[in-house]
C-alpha cells in the first residue's frame, strides 16, 4: 500500500516535470537573477559588470525621472481601472437580460480585447491625429491630443479603457448570471425598488468578484507598456512615461542594464505589494 502510494506520487511528478522545469528555467531563475543584476553596474555592450551593492537603489530613490514615471503609472492605473469598472458594470447590467442577437453582441464586444494592443495604439494614434484625425472633426475642435502633456496621458487612458472594458464587462456578467433569480423575485414580492435590489442583492453578491477584477486590471494597468510605447513613446517630454517604459529605455536605449534591472525590481515589488493589499481586502469581504 505504501509503495503504491509512492508510485502514484512519482507518476504525478513525471506529469508535472515539464511544467516545473519550464517555469523554473524561464521564470523563477530570471526572477532571482534580476536581483543580482540590480546590484551591478553593467552595460549591455561594453565593460565588465561590477558589483556595487545597493547603489542602484540609492540612485533610484533620488531619480526624479523614476518618480515622475511612478506618478504617471499610478495615475494611469487608478483612473483607467476606475473607468473600466464603472463602464464595465453598466455594460454587464445592460447585457444581463437575454435579447435577440446577444451572441453577436458578445462577439462584437470581444473585438477591442482581441485586437493586438500595438494595432489599437496605431488605430488611436490616427483617430487622435491633430490635423486629419476624425476625433477633432467629430468634436469640431483643434486639440493636439498627443502633443500636449495633459491631453496625452488622458488619451492613453481613454484608449486603455476602450480596450479593457469588454473584458471587465464579460467577467462581471458571468458573476451577475450566477446570482440566484429567486432573490430578486422575493425582493419584488416585498415591493423593493430596482435601486434597492441593486444595493441589497446585486452589489454585495458581486463585490468579491469586483475585487478579483480589480486585482487583474490593476496589475495589468500598472505594467502598461505596449499601448503607450506605440501611442506616444512616453512623450511629449516624459509626460506619459510609465515605469515599464522607463525601465525598457534604461535597459535597451541607454544600455544601463544594472540600473534598469533595479527599476524592474521596484516594479515587481510594487505589483507584489498591490496584490497583497487586494488579497487582504478580498479575504475581508468574502463570506
Amino acid at each position, binding site marked *: 500500500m505504501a509503495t503504491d502510494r509512492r508510485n*502514484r*506520487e512519482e*507518476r*504525478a511528478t513525471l*506529469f*508535472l516535470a*515539464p*511544467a*516545473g522545469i*519550464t517555469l523554473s528555467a*524561464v*521564470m*523563477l*531563475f*530570471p*526572477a532571482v*537573477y*534580476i536581483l543580482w*543584476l540590480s546590484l551591478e553596474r553593467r552595460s549591455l555592450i561594453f565593460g565588465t559588470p561590477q558589483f556595487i551593492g545597493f547603489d542602484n537603489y540609492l540612485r533610484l530613490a533620488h531619480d526624479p525621472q523614476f518618480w515622475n514615471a511612478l506618478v504617471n503609472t499610478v495615475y494611469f492605473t487608478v483612473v483607467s481601472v476606475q473607468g473600466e469598472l464603472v463602464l464595465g458594470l453598466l455594460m454587464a447590467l*445592460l*447585457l444581463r437580460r437575454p435579447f435577440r442577437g446577444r*451572441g453577436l*453582441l*458578445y*462577439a*462584437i*464586444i*470581444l*473585438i477591442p480585447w*482581441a*485586437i*493586438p*494592443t*500595438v*494595432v489599437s495604439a*496605431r*488605430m488611436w494614434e*490616427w483617430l487622435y491625429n491633430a490635423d*486629419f484625425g476624425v476625433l477633432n*472633426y467629430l468634436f469640431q475642435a483643434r486639440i493636439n491630443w498627443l502633443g500636449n502633456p495633459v491631453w496625452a496621458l488622458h488619451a492613453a487612458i481613454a484608449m486603455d479603457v476602450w480596450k479593457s472594458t*469588454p473584458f471587465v464587462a*464579460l*467577467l462581471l456578467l458571468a458573476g451577475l448570471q450566477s446570482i440566484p433569480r429567486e432573490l430578486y423575485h422575493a425582493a419584488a414580492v416585498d415591493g423593493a425598488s430596482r435601486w434597492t435590489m441593486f444595493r441589497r442583492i446585486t452589489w454585495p453578491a458581486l463585490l468579491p468578484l469586483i475585487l478579483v*477584477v480589480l486585482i*487583474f486590471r490593476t*496589475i495589468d494597468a500598472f*505594467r502598461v*507598456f*505596449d499601448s503607450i510605447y*506605440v501611442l506616444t513613446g512616453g512623450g511629449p517630454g516624459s509626460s506619459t512615461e510609465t*515605469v*515599464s517604459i522607463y525601465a*525598457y529605455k534604461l*535597459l535597451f536605449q541607454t544600455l544601463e542594464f544594472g540600473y534598469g*534591472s533595479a527599476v*524592474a*525590481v521596484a*516594479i*515587481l515589488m510594487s*505589483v507584489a505589494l498591490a496584490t497583497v493589499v487586494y488579497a487582504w481586502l478580498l479575504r475581508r469581504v468574502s463570506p
Partner: protein
Amino acid sequence: MRSAARGLALVLVALYSLAPFLWQIVTSLKPAHELTSLPPLLPSRIEFASYLAIFSDSPLLRAVVNSLIVAGGTTLLALVIGALAGFALARLRVRRRAAILAGVLVVSMFPPIATVSPLFLLLNALGLHDTLLALILTYTTFSLPLAIWLLTNFFRSIPEELYIASRVDGCTPFQSFYRVMLPLASPGLAAAALLVFIFSWNEFLYALSFTATTASRTVPVAIALFPGLHEVPWGDIAAASVVVTLPLLVLAMVFHRRIVDGLTAGAVKG
C-alpha cells in the same frame, strides 16, 4: 419606451466596440491623397493600393509568417505541458497541490518587464538572440499558468468515475490520460488554445526586446516599427492593422463562447 432606450444603449455598446476598427478599414481603403483631406469622411472611391503596398514592399509578410510560427508553436507546447500538469493536479496524488496551484497563480501576476533583462542575457548565452525559438520558449512559459489553471479546472469537472473505470480496465495513468481524459477535455483544450494563441499573437515587450532583424520580428513589432521615411504612411498602417487583426476577429466571432468561458473560468471560480 423602456425597451427602445435599451435597444439604443445596446447599439451604442456595439458602436463603441466597433467604430475605431471600422474607421481603420475605411482609412485602409482610401486613395492616398484623401487621407489628408478635410473633412475626414468617407472616400470618394475605394482603392486597394495600401494593401498592395504592404505585401509588395514591406517586411509585413515575413512578420505574419513569423507570428504564425511563434503563436502556433507556443500554443502546441503550452497545451501539451499544461495538459500533463493539469491532469496530474486534478486526478493524481500530488503533495502540496494547493500550494502548487497558488504558486502558479502568483507567477501569472509577474510583470514581464521584471524578467526581460535576465532573460535577455540567458537567451544570448544560449545563442538564441533574434530567433523565433527564444520567443516560443518565453511565451510558452508565460502562458503556462493560464493553461494549467484552466485545464486543472476542466479535468476536475470530468467525473472521476471515468478515470477510475479506465484504470480498473487496465490503463496506466498515462494511457488513461491520453486515451480517455484528453478527448473528454477537448472543449477546455480549445478554450486554452484560443487564449494562448491570441496572447502569443499580440505580445510586444519580449518580441521587441529579443528580436533585432526582420528575420524574427513578429507582427506587433513590425506594426510598431512600420517603415516611414518622411511621413507616416497612415493608409499602409491601416491596411496592415486590418490584415493582422482579421485572423483574431474570425477566431473571436466563431469561438466567442469558448473564449468567454475561458476568460471567466479563472476569475469566477477562483
